């Protein structure tokens, strides 16, 4: 670390790192300087002039904006002088000239920096008697974001965020001077996966979300810190509720993980908690219909099965459980049978990954300190959105980026080297000899690199990724971040052994080895590429118990459906992210009806069946989850609740994954998932339910030509199944490739190992006429 500089602020001696901004140095020393436009995670602009302070210069004391002034040694600063106060009053009087007095109906009121700082630093009265400027009250700049231009004070936080951080600058200042407004281009809405962040950082009520607008007042909100379990990034979040209803999620600035940002799915996919369609009572299949049943009856009927030592039990677990839930299932499984057992995760992309004693696993922060980042995985913007932001940030700081695969085109525009269709075949094999590729060798050889590796699609062979891994491992000083993309997968790694994915489930499970199947928080029929196979397996098995928040295609075929509480906001527990950072999941709202946590259900069931139960409480399970770790390093509740560990605790771990390689034949179709889909929770979250409902495919140019696709839509057909979809031509695809997003119902029902027909809609229409 370079030497510190010493400053005198308001007569106090403070110390700071050189090259720091004055406003930040003061903040670190506990001296608050008011501001609107400056944000720790954005480049400074000096737009609002609220942070003016007096600095001694050779020409006497001068007012300078502290957000654009770097500290220097022996700087003398006054942040509270009369001149500064007068400047602050002046700035606020100007800012308030055009700001409407609609605080009584404004969502921001009560947590509004403009309101607060006017109280603290404002002139107290206005001399402005003219007419304020007027704009149409909120306009929809996207399906989920509203903009009230009258309230905007032109700090440029939102426009800078969309330009610098998320890289989709679809909002900008239009006009100038008194007419300046933030707006989008006509018919080009602010369609961004990260748009919710602009609402959070807006220092006034100009940007609001359809989700939270007019729902509550900040002083009525109850809040608690938790962790988002949407994807393995594990963003730190704050949950807000009022009157026992979850109303809002905010990003928390966890320096090592999300730095305050979130994706919109994480931010708004909570509304399902308040849905009327939530399962509230246990159901039992009686005469082909699910009818309500007492939970005691569920326990006693299932207990009969379990008491019988001959009963063969298996588990298909979703990725949204807490680590404690996973432990509960493990304990249950160990108690009923001592023989080794596999757990199946609801993940059609689970594979062995890169773990082992000789492999150094990376942390998210390593992205910033490496010389280069190499990515070959699913599209990170779709699957691990905030990790995508961290890559963007690293690249902005000068880290080189090498991207493989046509499925990663969202990173291609910031990549130094993009190996698209020329390098990666339609079978997801690397086409050329890497050691002869000049560009990658220049960037990688002998350097510190972070490799983000995963499989782009279920059809990709393990071997192809391994080839890249081995090249990197032998040529560079590499660390690996395994990019699994589902919820708490890493928590399952940490707590369960012999993990297998959905392809193994399809191969292994049959009525011969399973009498009782638990499907927990998963809808593999509604959302996986093995939909049909799993459907017939489930139909054949004697007793199937589904635990979930909603009824869905899988639960409708189950014998028992048990309503469970959501991991988001209704449960306590722990979550482990992509870098094996374990952090707290906390409970804010009560869960509806007779819902239970998964672990409560399993523990009660064990008690009913008269099994020995060692883990009767959440604390027991929590301790059990980490019993093999040194107690001071173990992420048990006691440790996680210490203020120093709020951001989570890292325990790097080598999981035992028993998943076998996927042997699906790939046809011209390959599958993946987009950020938004139409899973049960998404369907019941009003704000985002429309975002994943559109059925579409992406085709390469040659496919569009071959099938004469001109009308914007086409029909996918196989056997009896016909689905009308719109299509988009994707120029980065190799010839003859079609992508199908399978997190949309119906689209996952095809048998992807066989041909699927593409019929242009004009042909279909002609057929219908005849």
């Amino acid at each position, binding site marked *: 670390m370079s030497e510190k500089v010493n400053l005198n602020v308001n007569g106090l001696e403070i110390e700071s790192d050189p090259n720091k901004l004055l406003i930040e140095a003061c903040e670190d020393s506990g001296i608050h300087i008011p501001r609107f436009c400056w944000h720790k995670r954005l480049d400074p602009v000096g737009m609002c002039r609220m942070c003016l302070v007096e600095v001694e210069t050779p020409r006497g004391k001068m007012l300078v904006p502290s957000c654009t002034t770097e500290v220097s040694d022996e700087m003398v600063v006054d942040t509270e002088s009369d001149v500064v106060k007068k400047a602050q009053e002046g700035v606020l009087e100007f800012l308030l000239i055009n700001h409407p007095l609609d605080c009584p109906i404004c969502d921001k009121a009560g947590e509004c920096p403009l309101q607060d700082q006017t109280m603290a630093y404002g002139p107290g009265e206005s001399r402005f008697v003219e007419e304020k400027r007027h704009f149409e009250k909120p306009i929809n700049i996207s399906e989920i974001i509203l903009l009230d231009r009258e309230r905007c004070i032109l700090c440029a936080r939102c426009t800078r965020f969309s330009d610098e951080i998320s890289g989709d600058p679809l909002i*900008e200042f239009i006009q100038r001077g008194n007419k300046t407004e933030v707006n989008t281009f006509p018919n080009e809405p602010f369609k961004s996966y990260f748009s919710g962040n602009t609402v959070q950082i807006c220092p006034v009520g100009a940007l609001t979300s359809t989700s939270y607008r007019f729902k509550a007042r900040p002083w009525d909100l109850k809040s608690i810190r938790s962790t988002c379990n949407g994807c393995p990034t594990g963003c730190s979040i704050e949950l807000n509720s009022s009157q026992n209803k979850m109303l809002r999620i905010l990003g928390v600035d966890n320096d090592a993980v999300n730095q305050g940002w979130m994706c919109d799915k994480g931010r708004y996919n909570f509304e399902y908690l308040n849905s009327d369609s939530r399962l509230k009572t246990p159901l039992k299949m009686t005469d082909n219909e699910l009818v309500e049943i007492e939970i005691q009856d569920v326990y006693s009927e299932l207990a009969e099965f379990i008491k019988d030592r001959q009963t063969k039990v298996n588990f298909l677990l979703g990725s949204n459980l807490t680590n404690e839930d996973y432990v509960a299932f493990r304990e249950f499984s160990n108690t009923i049978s001592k023989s080794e057992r596999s757990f199946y995760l609801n993940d059609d992309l689970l594979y062995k990954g890169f773990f082992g004693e000789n492999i150094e696993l990376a942390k998210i922060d390593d992205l910033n300190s490496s010389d280069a980042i190499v990515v070959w995985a699913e599209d990170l913007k779709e699957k691990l959105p905030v990790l995508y932001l961290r890559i963007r940030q690293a690249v902005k700081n000068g880290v080189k980026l090498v991207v493989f695969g046509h499925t990663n085109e969202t990173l291609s525009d910031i990549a130094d080297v993009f190996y698209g269709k020329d390098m990666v075949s339609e079978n997801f094999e690397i086409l050329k000899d890497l050691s002869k590729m000049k560009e990658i060798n220049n960037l990688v050889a002998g350097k510190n690199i972070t490799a983000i590796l995963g499989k782009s699609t279920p059809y990709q062979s393990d071997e192809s990724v391994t080839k890249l891994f081995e090249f990197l491992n032998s040529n560079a000083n590499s660390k690996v971040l395994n990019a699994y993309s589902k919820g708490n997968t890493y928590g399952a790694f940490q707590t369960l052994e012999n993990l297998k994915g959905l392809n193994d489930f399809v191969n292994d499970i049959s009525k011969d080895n399973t009498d009782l199947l638990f499907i927990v928080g998963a809808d593999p029929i509604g959302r996986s590429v093995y939909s049909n196979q799993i459907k017939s397996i489930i139909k054949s098995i004697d007793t199937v118990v589904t635990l979930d928040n909603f009824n869905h295609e899988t639960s409708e075929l189950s014998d028992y459906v048990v309503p469970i509480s959501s991991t988001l906001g209704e449960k306590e527990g722990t979550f482990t992210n992509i870098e094996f950072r374990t952090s707290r999941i906390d409970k804010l709202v009560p869960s509806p009806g007779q819902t239970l946590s998964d672990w409560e259900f399993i523990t009660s069931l064990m008690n009913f069946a008269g099994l020995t139960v060692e883990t009767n409480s959440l604390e027991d399970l929590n301790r059990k989850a980490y019993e093999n770790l040194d107690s001071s390093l173990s992420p048990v509740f006691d440790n996680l609740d210490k203020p120093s560990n709020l951001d989570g605790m890292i325990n790097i771990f080598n999981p035992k994954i028993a998943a076998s390689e996927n042997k699906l034949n790939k046809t011209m179709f390959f599958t993946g998932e987009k950020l938004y889909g139409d899973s049960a929770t998404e369907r019941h979250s009003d704000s985002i339910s429309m975002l994943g409902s559109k059925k579409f495919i992406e085709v390469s140019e040659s496919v569009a030509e071959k099938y004469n696709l001109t009308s914007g839509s086409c029909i996918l057909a196989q056997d009896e199944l016909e689905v009308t979809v719109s299509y988009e031509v994707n120029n980065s695809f190799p010839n003859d490739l079609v992508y199908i997003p399978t997190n949309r119902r119906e689209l996952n029902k095809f048998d992807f190992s066989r041909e699927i027909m593409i019929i242009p809609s004009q042909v279909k229409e002609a057929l219908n006429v005849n």
Partner: protein
Amino acid sequence: MSWDDKLLKQAKKIIKLYPQKRSALGPLLHLAQSKDGYISDDSISVISDLVGITEVQVKSVSTFYSMYKQEPTGKYLLSVCKSISCEINNSSEVINKVQEFTGLNNNETDEDELFTFEAVECIGACGGAPAVQVNYETVEGVTPENAINMCKWLKETKPDVVVADEMQENFGGVKSFDWAIQDNSGSTSTAPGFQTLNTTKVKK
């Protein structure tokens, strides 16, 4: 794409002059203006594709500068200076006369789409105040009478090229100083006359 091949070729030529594509944004907007007389949303989409920034970013720049018109202009854009030097030298009377003749308020275009009138801030010709621009070709020392004469001349002859020196000779008065090299090219549209934009013709 609403730009024809000729214009696109021109645009690509301009982009090549800059180390980064987006630096060509200013001239490309002038080019768009020379095509339509204003910056249309269609042109913005074309430019956004050409330089690789989003449409709203182009829109942001085009609406910031007042020389990029957001509404269609007439064949001749009359800009009369209203800043201090010109005001002292009776530009308000010039403004009145021009408005009277054209029947236009500030920033209006007549029905024939012949004239657009605007009263503008300093155009850098204080030495020869009051100054007027026709399609950004500057004429200095314009008396109210000469302003009318100039408008009449424009209306009657409808020249395709307006040339500063020519108008200065016929309708101008005191000139501040000779602008750099002698320039007998002119402007062919409501964008400034630049060789690179093809908005000028060298007169023989």
